[in-house]
């Protein structure tokens, strides 16, 4: 008899076969849910919407009382100001953005390059006191940056890493490696070791087996992990403000924060800078959204 398991199991009631009363109640509930969620979303997202509006308003509309919700003239001047200095040439803010790109990018790459093989090793080999080691690695993340920033500041001043991009890159890498190891270990655990065993019997060394078989299967996991690391480095504020002093090194978060606090605040510029700052994170998260949730194995292994 050839009854496939799927057919036999999926014989549950299809949605349309529900009794009519229940369906109506279901529809009413959906309407309420949608309404509640819409209100919630509007409340939650209001600051963001307001920021977007402010970034494209002219300054006199920004300060208008009562506030203008819809009838303002649209301008992109603030965005121009983010990148171009008033006398022409690149602005200090654009320099900060570039610093952020370099610091976040390099530290993420470093954390990935160091963390992925480490995670693989922790997953595949029996290491002495593995649990304790992993706990120790993670424990470096228990401390909030504010707690350690003063000693690090003092050390950095001694060794000449204060106010250098290298200093920031190192500290961000140090913070991201544990995270990468922990997250990637989960992904490596998911990839059956038999792939590597098979590859080794097929004539490859262990490292080749890792490189050729496990690594490709890990790519989605690596992408997801790297995006998290990138977002951490990109958003990081405490170290950035304590460990840098010059505009040449300063990254975007402290630079944007620095826009607020003079005698007058150019809110349009602050809003535009914030949007430019938020955009890469949104784009990256969107690009890897599938991998952020997807499982890694491709279903070739039957357990």
């Amino acid at each position, binding site marked *: 008899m050839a009854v496939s398991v799927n057919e036999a199991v999926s014989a549950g009631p299809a949605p349309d076969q529900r009794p009519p009363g229940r369906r109506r109640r279901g529809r009413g509930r959906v309407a309420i849910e949608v309404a509640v969620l819409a209100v919630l979303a509007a409340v939650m997202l209001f600051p963001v919407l307001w920021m977007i509006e402010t970034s494209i308003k002219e300054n006199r509309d920004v300060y208008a009382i009562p506030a203008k919700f819809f009838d303002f003239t649209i301008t992109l001047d603030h965005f121009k100001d983010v990148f171009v200095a008033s006398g022409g040439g690149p602005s200090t803010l654009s320099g900060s953005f570039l610093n952020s790109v370099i610091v976040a990018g390099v530290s993420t790459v470093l954390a990935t390059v160091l963390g992925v093989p480490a995670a693989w090793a922790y997953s595949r080999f029996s290491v002495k006191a593995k649990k304790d080691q992993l706990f120790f690695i993670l424990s470096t993340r228990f401390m909030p940056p504010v707690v350690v920033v003063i000693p690090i500041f003092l050390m950095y001043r001694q060794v000449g890493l204060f106010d250098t991009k290298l200093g920031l890159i190192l500290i961000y890498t140090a913070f991201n490696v544990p995270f990468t190891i922990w997250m990637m270990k989960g992904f490596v655990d998911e990839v*059956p070791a038999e792939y590597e065993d098979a590859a*080794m019997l097929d*004539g490859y060394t262990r490292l080749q087996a890792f490189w050729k078989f496990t690594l*490709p299967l890990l790519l989605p996991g690596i992408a997801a992990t790297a995006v998290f690391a990138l977002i951490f480095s990109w958003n990081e504020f405490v170290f950035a403000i304590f460990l840098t002093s010059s505009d040449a090194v300063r990254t975007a978060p402290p630079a944007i924060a620095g826009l607020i606090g003079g005698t007058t605040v150019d809110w349009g510029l602050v809003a535009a800078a914030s949007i430019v700052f938020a955009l890469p994170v949104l784009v990256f998260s969107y690009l890897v959204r599938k991998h952020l949730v997807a499982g890694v194995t*491709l279903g*070739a*292994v*039957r357990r």
Partner: protein
Amino acid sequence: MAGIEVTSLHKRYPDGTVAVEHVDLSIGDGELFVMLGPSGCGKTTTLRAIAGLERQTSGDIRIGDTLVNDLPPAERDIAMVFQFYALYPHLRTRDNLAFPLRAEGLPKAEVEERVGEAARLMRLGPLLDRRPHRLSGGEQQRVALARALVRRPRAFLMDEPLTNLDAELRADMRTEIKHLQGELGTTMVYVTHDQVEAMSLGHRIAILNKGRVEQIGTPLEVYDRPASLFCAAFIGSPPMNLIEVELADGHLRSKSGLALTPPPNLPRDRSLIAGVRPEALEVTEPGAEGSVPGRVVSAEWLGDEIIYVVDHGDQRDVRVRMPLNVRFAADAPVGLRHTGGPPPVYDASTEELVA
């Protein structure tokens, strides 16, 4: 092709687990050698040590004339089929097969020829362009076997390759593997915890228990004369009845009085246990000649035979295999007698075969 020689193998994992206590195996060239044992007895560990995927704590492994203790898996020229197939998920069947050959750096034409040959042997033609996730379990298994074949290794190692298949397919694949091994004449070490598989496949069977070899022998030897109580209780379904016996006036007798033909040279001064196969017993009408009185506890109908569980006044009930034409109702008073030749007899304290 080559034989495999395992001497005093001992494997202790870093966490302290002793997976293999002491294993000696001498596997002949071209032999289909089965390692059989319950879960956790160290079969996989032994196999992985032979493959080089696990380094033994002590002991020697020879493949052919080569001492391979220090050789990495890649240089042992061995192919292994895993319980979980381990087909590379991102490669199509064709490339999965070609992979080990490309690793060897064979010219393209030869790779294609060998892949074609393996595909023909395992009837994979229509599957060559599919990826593993689009293959059924049985198909994946055939691909995994084909991948082991293409390299023409000196030996095959199989770690429960059929466990994930349903019963019917398993029987088919069993026949196929046996046929293939005969055809190729390549040494094969086959690990399983399924005794039917072991019996039907193996030229010889090694029974492992707690990291030790309990017995090595042909399926017939293993079935007829299990070397220890463990083997006696492990092989056969239902397994042997283990009956406490005493030697009295030239007869082996159980406490209930059931008489068994005694094997020659029985030691006298020990407590003994006889291993009696269910087919060496017979349920009779009560009071039949040479029978002891008993009572049917239950009857299990297996299609072409019935297994009776009979209480004959001994500590343990016995199982008796009977043809369909003799029927007794549950709870019916019956007779029980021994019909076979001398059963294997074990020392109750050492659990070893004594006669």
